[in-house]
């Protein structure tokens, strides 16, 4: 077991980091927002944490939440103009947002180190602390599923105008979706900085965007299991077949097309759907007891 851990530690760490980013990506989609802005939030959190950790004496228990906070702020600010945009256009607009963040990181050299980025960041994250943070994010997502917020997000994702006809403010809840996505993205951007020693602008570019999107499409866009499956498969894949690692871009592309065409809900969501379907058949017409309620929502 110990041996297994040491030989696969980098894979596990990579899995945990992409898991966090995947939840940031997923929560936006769950709320019906086609944002692919996670890379931008990660860059905001990543840079803030890297700069604070290398240039100031601010304690870590302040720095790490600050990464999440700036991500949430970014999500809030972004949500205001984007409230005017519909559906798919949000995707490109958030891509433009990522571009803006990267351009700013390149421009303000004094602060960000320009193209070289921030170097010599103290490495304080290890597998266990990353796992703890991933659990925290899973808890938040699980909580959304156990409350009416989860139903509202599901309603927005399925039919915005029906949700509005029931009194749901599209703007307010899309803003919440953006902010949660931003907070998680900023948090994990910061954690990544405290793990990889140095960060540079291009690490948050197009490749980041599509990698995270692939994870969520492959895993699933609505369930807790989705990102776990997606990040897991994407972490193992290059280990299993080395040639795939050289053409990662194409592999991502092929996975996206195949999954969205033939298994549109993704691996994780499809499994959860099947399990849930069996539960419901067994339950029949009994009033939902408290325990059952907890079960039923556990993975929504």
């Amino acid at each position, binding site marked *: 077991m110990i041996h297994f851990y040491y030989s696969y530690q980098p894979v596990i760490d990579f899995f945990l980091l992409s898991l966090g980013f995947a939840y940031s990506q997923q929560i936006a989609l769950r709320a019906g927002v086609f944002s692919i802005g996670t890379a931008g939030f990660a860059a905001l959190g990543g840079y803030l944490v890297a700069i604070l950790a290398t240039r100031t004496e601010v304690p870590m228990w302040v720095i790490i939440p600050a990464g999440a906070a700036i991500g949430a702020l970014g999500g809030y600010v972004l949500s205001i103009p984007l409230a005017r945009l519909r559906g798919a256009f949000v995707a490109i607009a958030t891509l433009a947002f990522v571009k803006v963040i990267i351009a700013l990181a390149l421009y303000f050299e004094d602060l960000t180190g320009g193209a070289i980025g921030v170097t010599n960041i103290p490495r304080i994250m290890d597998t266990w602390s990353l796992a703890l943070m991933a659990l925290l994010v899973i808890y938040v997502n699980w909580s959304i599923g156990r409350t009416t917020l989860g139903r509202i997000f599901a309603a927005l994702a399925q039919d915005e105008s029906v949700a509005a006809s029931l009194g749901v403010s599209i703007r307010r809840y899309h803003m919440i979706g953006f902010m949660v996505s931003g907070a998680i993205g900023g948090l994990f951007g910061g954690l990544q900085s405290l793990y990889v020693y140095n960060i540079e602008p291009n690490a948050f570019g197009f490749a980041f965007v599509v990698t995270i*999107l692939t994870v969520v499409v492959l895993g699933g866009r609505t369930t807790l299991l989705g990102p776990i499956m997606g990040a897991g498969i994407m972490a193992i894949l290059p280990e299993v077949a080395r040639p795939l690692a050289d053409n990662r871009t194409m592999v991502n592309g092929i996975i996206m097309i195949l999954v969205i065409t033939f298994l549109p809900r993704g691996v994780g969501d499809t499994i959860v759907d099947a399990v849930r379907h069996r539960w419901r058949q067994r339950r029949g017409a009994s009033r939902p007891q408290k325990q059952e309620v907890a079960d039923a929502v556990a993975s929504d």
Partner: protein
Amino acid sequence: MLAQQILNGVVSGSIYALFALGFTLLFGVQKLLNLAHGAVFMAGAFIAYYCVIIGLPFWVGLVFAMIASGVISIIVELVAFRQIRKQVDPEFPAIVSSLGVDLILINIAQNLSNTRVLSMPFGTFPIEFYNIFGLRISLLQIVILVLVAALVGALVYYLQKTSFGRQVRAVAQNERAAALLGVSAASVYRQTFFIAGALAGVAGVLIGLSFNSIHFLMGEPYLLYAFVVVVIGGIGSVPGAVVAAILLGVTQALTKAYLSSTLSDAIIFSLLFVALLFFPNGLFGRAVLSAGGDRK
């Protein structure tokens, strides 16, 4: 100096118009965004480059790139949209599948070019300058303006005056009703993808030549420019797209000249976000984006 920058901006803006027109045409017809449009643009530049490299004249390369890009675009439709369109809510799946095709094309180009930036050999296009009212304008710029005007004119004629144009409008309004009238949606999609792809291919060649740089990731920023053009110009509006594209080109030339070339894109996109706050329906009126209903 200012006038010179504006002229340069108008020229590059006219190329953006070519690219954006195809993008908005596709969205108008199928109501789905094609994120692979930038890769088709990039493919056009690559194809022309390799034509010139093997010794073909530039003009032959341009025409070949135009046709080949159109064909690639048809393949994009086949792979990314044909099946997806049948899903109940294809909007998000279409983003994913077209991005998937985009990635495959990018990876092919990356392998072909070994991740290098390519440039057309010296002398591919004659370098000549003319002075008009004190402005320096190159032969290439004149050719670009004339070519773009001709292509936009041909597109407008095609959409407005031919039976194909009527079929496109019918499918854009209601695919099922169009089918009842005997219009084959599949053939309309194929034709619009060919046209949009061909326009994107030409735009790719012209950009590759103007900036002397052909790169496997060159499509991405232009996809974002097309988005800016569509939001500001209004979906489906040809004059809106042309005006917005030229505005974009000029803004870009001016920010690069007077502010910062690193920040140029950031400024343009930030301006777009600000514009969205104040002109939610685009500068040219059409309600591009409100989700059903008109009370906002």
